[in-house]
C-alpha cells in the first residue's frame, strides 16, 4: 500500500525520519524552578538556545496534574520550543494535545532497539510517521561528517556525534576523531580514533592502511603493533574481546 502513488500529483509525501532531538528531562513541575535553572543555562551556552526544539519528558514526575502551559511559556521565553511531551498520566496527555503538542509514550513502554552506546547523548528520535519502525543502528549517521580533500599534517578533523568519512588522503601527523566509525577512501597515513565516547561497536575502514595509530573506544594500536602484512591493504578495524582486530576488507 502506498500513500502517494504518483509523486507528480501529490502535494506531499510522508517519510520516516530520525531527527536529533533534545529531551528535557523534568524532575520538577515547578515553572519557577525551571525558569531559574534555564536562566543559568542560557548564560553558559547561549548558542544552544536558538529556538531549539525540545521534548519535555515528565516521566520522572509523579503528579497527576502539571502546569504544562506555564512550563511551555517558560521554555519559549528562553528560546526553547517544546514540540512534544513524553510520558505522564492521561490528564497530562490530554493537556499536551490541547496545547498543540505531540505526546510520546514513556521510554520504557517502547521497544528497545539494539543496546545503545554507553554514553547516550541528550538526543532522542521522535516517533516515526511510518508504520514500520526503522532499524536502530548502533552508530547512527546523524551528526556524521564527510570531508573531501587531503587531511594534512597537524590538522584534526572530528565528528564527535557520528561517523567521519574522508574522501581523500589522511597524511602523517593528521588526526581523525569520531564518536562513531571512521571511513577513509584513500591512504590512511595519520591517526584514526573511532568511538571516542566509548562506542565499542565503532570501526575504522580504509582503502590503504599506513596508519600511525588506530583506536576504537580507547583501545589502540601503534604503527609498530600493526601486522606489517596489513600495511598498504584495504582493511577494517574492529574491537573484539578488548583487542583491535585488523582484517582485510573482502
Amino acid at each position, binding site marked *: 500500500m502506498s500513500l502517494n502513488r504518483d509523486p507528480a500529483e501529490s502535494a506531499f509525501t510522508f517519510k520516516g525520519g530520525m531527527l536529533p532531538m533534545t529531551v528535557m528531562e523534568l524532575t520538577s513541575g515547578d515553572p519557577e524552578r525551571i525558569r531559574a535553572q534555564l536562566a543559568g543555562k542560557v548564560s553558559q551556552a547561549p548558542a544552544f538556545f536558538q529556538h531549539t526544539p525540545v521534548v519535555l519528558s515528565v516521566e520522572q514526575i509523579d503528579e497527576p496534574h502539571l502546569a504544562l502551559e506555564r512550563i511551555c511559556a517558560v521554555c519559549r521565553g528562553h528560546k526553547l520550543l517544546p514540540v512534544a511531551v513524553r510520558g505522564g498520566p492521561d490528564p497530562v496527555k490530554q493537556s499536551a494535545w490541547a496545547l498543540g503538542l505531540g505526546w510520546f509514550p514513556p521510554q520504557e513502554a517502547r521497544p528497545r532497539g539494539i543496546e545503545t552506546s554507553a554514553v547516550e547523548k541528550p538526543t532522542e528520535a521522535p516517533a516515526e510517521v511510518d508504520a514500520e519502525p526503522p532499524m536502530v543502528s548502533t552508530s547512527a549517521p546523524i551528526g556524521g561528517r564527510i570531508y573531501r580533500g587531503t587531511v594534512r599534517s597537524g590538522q584534526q578533523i572530528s565528528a564527535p556525534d557520528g561517523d567521519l568519512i574522508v574522501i581523500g588522503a589522511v597524511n602523517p601527523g593528521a588526526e581523525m576523531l569520531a564518536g562513531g566509525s571512521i571511513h577513509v577512501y584513500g591512504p590512511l*597515513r595519520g591517526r584514526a580514533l573511532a568511538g571516542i565516547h566509548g562506542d565499542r561497536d565503532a570501526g575504522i575502514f580504509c582503502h590503504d592502511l599506513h596508519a600511525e595509530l588506530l583506536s576504537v573506544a580507547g583501545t589502540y594500536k601503534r604503527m609498530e603493533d600493526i601486522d606489517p602484512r596489513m600495511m598498504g591493504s584495504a582493511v577494517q578495524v574492529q574491537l573484539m574481546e578488548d583487542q583491535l582486530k585488523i582484517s582485510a576488507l573482502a
Partner: protein
Amino acid sequence: MAKIIVVTSGKGGVGKTTSAAAIATGLALRGNKTVVIDFDVGLRNLDLIMGCERRVVYDLVNVIQGEAGLNQALIRDKRSENLHILPASQTRDKDALTLEGVETVLASLSEEFDYIICDSPAGIERGAQLALYFADEAIVVTNPEVSSVRDSDRILGLLSSKSRRAEQNRDPIKEHLLVTRYNPNRVDDGDMLNLEDICEILAINLIGLIPESEAVLRSSNQGVPVIHDDKSDAGQAYADTVSRLMGEDVPLRFQHVPKRGLLARMFGGGSRR
C-alpha cells in the same frame, strides 16, 4: 594589481630564500616589475643572497612603524631594473610585524608591481603566518626527505585555513610544489625520497625540480641569484620554474641520472657530484 606569491616550507634550510631570490630575479628578467620581501625579521638573509647587503638603510619594520617611506626602504637590484628588494630588520623580531602594517605595505606595493614575492621565515608561527596570510599563490619548497615533506604538509594545512583567502571564503591559494636539492643518484640509491612519493603525499601541482648543485652555494656566497648562472643545472631549473609560474608548459628536467656517454663510462669521469 600585483600577484602575491609566498615562498614557504615550514622547515628551515630547504632553500626558501635561494628560491625566492631566483624566482623573483627570473620574473624580473622576463620584464615583470617584481619586488621580493624578506619576512624573516631578526634573521635577515635575503639581502645577502641578492647581494645588496651593503645598501640596506631602512627595512620592512621601519616602513610598518612609519619611520621610513616605502620608496626609501626599497632597494633596486643592480642587475635588473625591474627588481626591487624590501629587506627585513636584523635588530628586531617577528613581533614588530603587524597584520595591518603588512596589509598596508602590500597594498601600496600592489599598485606599482606585477609580482610580490614574500620570502617566509621557517616555522609555522607569527612570522610565517603573516608572510602567507595575504598570498594569492604559494610556492612550497620541499627537500626529498621525510621531515621536510611532513613540514610542507603542515604548511599546506595552514595555507588552506589561516590565509585571508580562506577566512574570506574566496578561491583558495594556488599551491605549487618546488622540490629542491634533488639528487637523482641518491634517489636511485634509496637515500632520498623520489619525486613520485613526494608528489603523492603532498598532492599539489609540481612547479619545479631543482637538482642539488654546487652552483647554489657558490652563487649564495657571491650574492648573485643562481638563476643568473644559466650554465648551471640549478640555474636552468629555476628558469624552467619561472616559465611554468608564468603559465608556460615546460618539460621537467633533471629528474633522472644523466646517461653517461661511452667515454665517460670507460674513463669513469663525468659525474656531477
